[in-house]
């Protein structure tokens, strides 16, 4: 600490002296001569973990900077658990849970009451969980928390809000082919996991129409039990008092069953070329995908370093070669995807003008081949590790972020000190590790290559890379709709 301060004052003194010298003007040392002092010691404040008798886990994180309190409860069970005939159920549930109100108040009443206090209580549905959050000035906490608790324990799912939520999903379905990058992201996911995989499938008019209010009530009764809930609260409060309030609200809540996550098989894509015809664009969206892995894989650290080198930063190979040197793209990037409890996808993504589509695919192949012909170097390794380790402090530079991380580790059963292990793991990564994961997870012959674009304008037909499978993205009509009203996107060619 002393040394730190002394160093700084010397630094300032040197600078102010040099500024007096005319010769120094415009001739400040080049960046390599700038001394970087050690970063001050920093021990981020950890949230306090409390577990109730009924299994509900609570994290309390005091943050007195601003007069707000924010909280999120994350509940096991999400869209990957919904039946294939009712895709969209978790998303509809995530809306109507809040808009449908509680036993004592309608959702519209809640809107008026909360908005008048600049407060928010919102719900949502995700892939593996649903959530309910609150955000309010601390002086309104008690009344807002009461609503939060009522929504958890006595939601009403009033019928009139069900069609409203379905409207939102139907609009999303109708518009899902409008933006080419959206089409590419969705279809790449389907190629990587399989079109019917819980990690890729999409709601359709028919599956949305099949969802009823009873489904929403059943969902709530199946999943929302204290032993499936992790609650995190951050803000301007005293932990002891907050713990008491939470205990009072939830101690009496009886435990319920804990449904197991779905058994999903991951077989990877069928390699080859895939085309989505889209005639109203002058840029092709290209994706290359195969299966990635999980974060509890010991390779995770080497993968993180590899990604930084390959396609995860401005100074990565993909950006440098494909964007900067060849000028073929504005957007290009990629890497080996990882997720907490299921394999992520290896994915490369880029956009290039229609007339350089084949050239761009060649350029991407060249980068993949390059992993063998010009394997990552010591210099690249050092730069990538420096980048990850020097920016490590940004993983926990706010109390809210620290809370989020801890909640994620709890949710997925990862060790509480995963972040510290991550730092240690990155430090140990060697060049051999990086080269090994590049060979292990990136397979040119295993890739599904997807192009969303206007084929007539391509520089070479995609068939020059092999047989091409056309993907039909036309939207299945809603049940009972007149066939005549439908047309697909592939007319006039």
């Amino acid at each position, binding site marked *: 600490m002393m040394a730190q301060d002394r160093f700084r004052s010397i630094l*300032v003194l040197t*600078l102010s002296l*040099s*500024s007096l010298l005319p010769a120094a003007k415009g001739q*400040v040392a080049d960046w390599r001569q700038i001394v*970087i002092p*050690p*970063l*001050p010691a920093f021990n*981020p404040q950890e949230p306090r973990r409390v577990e109730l008798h009924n299994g509900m886990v609570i994290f309390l994180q005091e943050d007195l*900077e*601003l*007069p*707000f309190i924010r909280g999120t409860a994350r509940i096991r069970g999400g869209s990957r658990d919904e039946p294939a005939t009712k895709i969209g159920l978790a998303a509809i549930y995530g809306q109507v849970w809040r*808009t449908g109100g509680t036993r004592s108040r309608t*959702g*519209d009443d809640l*809107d008026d009451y909360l*908005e*008048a*206090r*600049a407060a928010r209580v919102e719900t949502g549905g995700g892939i593996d969980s649903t959530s309910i959050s609150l955000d309010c000035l601390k*002086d309104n906490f008690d009344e807002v928390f009461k609503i939060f608790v009522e929504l958890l324990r006595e939601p009403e799912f009033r019928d009139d809000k069900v069609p*409203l939520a379905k*409207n939102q999903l*139907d*609009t*999303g*379905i*109708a*518009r899902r082919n409008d*933006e080419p*990058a959206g089409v590419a992201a969705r279809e790449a996911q389907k190629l990587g996991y399989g079109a019917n995989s819980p990690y890729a499938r999409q709601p359709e*008019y028919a599956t949305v129409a099949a969802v009823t209010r009873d489904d929403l009530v059943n969902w709530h009764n199946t999943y929302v039990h204290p032993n499936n809930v992790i609650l995190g609260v951050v803000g*301007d409060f005293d932990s002891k008092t907050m713990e008491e309030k939470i205990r009072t609200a939830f101690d009496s809540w009886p435990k319920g069953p804990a449904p197991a996550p779905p058994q999903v098989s991951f077989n990877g894509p069928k390699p080859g070329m895939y085309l989505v015809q889209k005639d*109203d*664009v*002058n*840029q092709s969206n290209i994706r290359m995908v195969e299966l990635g892995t999980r974060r509890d894989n010991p390779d995770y650290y080497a993968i993180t370093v590899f990604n930084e080198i390959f396609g995860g*930063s401005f*100074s990565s190979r993909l950006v*440098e070669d494909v964007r*900067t040197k060849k*000028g*073929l*793209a504005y*957007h290009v990037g990629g890497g080996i995807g990882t997720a907490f409890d299921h394999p992520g996808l290896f994915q490369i993504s880029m*956009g290039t*003008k229609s007339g350089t589509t084949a050239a761009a695919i060649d350029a991407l192949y060249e980068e993949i081949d390059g992993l063998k012909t010009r394997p990552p170097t010591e210099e690249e390794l050092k*730069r990538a590790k*420096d980048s990850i*380790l*020097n920016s490590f*402090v*940004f993983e*926990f530079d*706010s109390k809210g972020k620290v809370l989020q991380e801890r909640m994620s580790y709890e949710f997925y059963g990862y060790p509480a000190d995963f972040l510290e292990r991550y730092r240690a793991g990155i430090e140990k990564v060697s060049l051999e590790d990086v080269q090994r994961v590049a060979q292990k997870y990136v397979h040119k012959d295993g890739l599904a290559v997807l192009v969303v674009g206007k084929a007539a304008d391509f520089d070479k037909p995609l068939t020059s890379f092999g047989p091409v499978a056309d993907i039909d993205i036309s939207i299945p009509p809603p049940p009972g709709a007149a066939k005549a*009203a439908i*047309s697909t*996107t592939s007319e006039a060619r």
Partner: protein
Amino acid sequence: MRIRALSILLGGALFAALPVTSSGQDLASLEKQVTVKVLDNGLTVVVCERHEAPVFSFFTHVDVGSDREYPGITGLAHMFEHMAFKGTDKIGTKDWPAEKVALAKVETTYAAYDRERRREFGRDEQKVAELKKAWEDAIAEAQTYVVPHAFDEIVEENGGVGLNAFTTNEETAYHYSFPVNRVELWAYLESERFLHPVMREFYKERDVVYEERRMRTDSDPNGRLFEQFLGTAFIAHPYGRPVVGWPSDLKTFSATDAENFFEKYYVAPNIVVAIVGDVKTAEVLPIVQQYFGRLPKRPQPEPLATVEPAQDSQRQVTVQDPAQPLYVEGYHKPSARDTKEEPVFDALQDLLSNGRTSRLYRSLVRDKKIAAFAGGFNDFPGAKYPDLFVFFAFPTPGHTPGELRDAIRPEIERLKTEDITDDELAMIKTRSKADLLRTLGDNAGLASQFATAQGVFGDWREFFHEVQRMDQLQKADIRRVANQTFVDSNRVLGMIESTQMAGGRKKQQ
């Protein structure tokens, strides 16, 4: 191009009115953390101490965007923004003296080639090909001196995060965050890029920027509509031109054009640098002085002369497109610098658009069920010059832009003829205070607010003052402004008419 939903100009707080006690932030306590210094060359520095974690963020606001372009060089402000990542005479070169000569040759060969290829009569194709070859050879020669991505690499290997920049119709901004032990390195890098910028790899980067245009505008139905919509709304003012530039200009302008643009507009008095985080002001200011003080003292360019003439009858643009429909309706209004009217438009935005209590949500989405989203937004496409208040809505499947228009219109009439309720007025005021408070807990967000408010209004406190003014708002202000703004002759309509039916669904059951 972006719609500033709740722009930095409209958050804000008068804390005395809030039920906030001990720990709350307010303007008085923030003033103790903030220091403003204008250097001798005219560059403004704003420093804010926030000791949450050993990191800091900065935001460099340059008071020029596409507003200072003219036909032929549209897109150039944005192009220069890209060039500011290409390094300097020390960063990114293997041999600067030789590279400098090579880059000069790129420019002379390009000028010769460009002149010949654009000749309208008597163009000699063989000569064009030769000149093009000479230019390409010069580029290849210059490329041999380049260390690609040197600037990005220095930032990234030193732990920089959020490295990026953006250009709007009136501003260019650069930002990232660093660990706090890199303050001096940052000051060096950020001042050096504006002291010794080098137009290396310019023409390849021009292709990259063109890809950005294809992504954001050409291949995106909403992008296609908004380019046409703004071109219809503004016939004289640069707000009518795309920030990314017209295709012809993106294929024509030169590195010399970019250098000239830089020389004229990147002058110290046009630049505000805000730095927020775990810094000590007394230590940062001398460093900033040392590095940014090196920028030459040059005069500020004259203000933009062109003012959009008053619109005297309704305009309309319809884009026929395979995509799903969209409806937009805009009205000309004064700039955000009009401190009397701006809070009223901010209040209108909140009333019409913010959340499930908003009027357009309740009418179009909840009750009529013809829209999936509907809102009214202030300060489009910018805030510095007279701009637009725009309503826009996405229909649910089977509904048309015309139905949206017909449903929005009575909501506008209601603003003119009925006072908003006491509850609505109180809600708007409460939310504006709380929303500002919510922005204060983030270094990067604060740096952006400080720099932009200081740059556009000459005072970082402006984002507090706005809300103090909002707190004085009367119901009659809303009616007055609605009556003077939302009139037929001041309206610009824009819509996407779908050339194909969406998934069939007709009317909501």
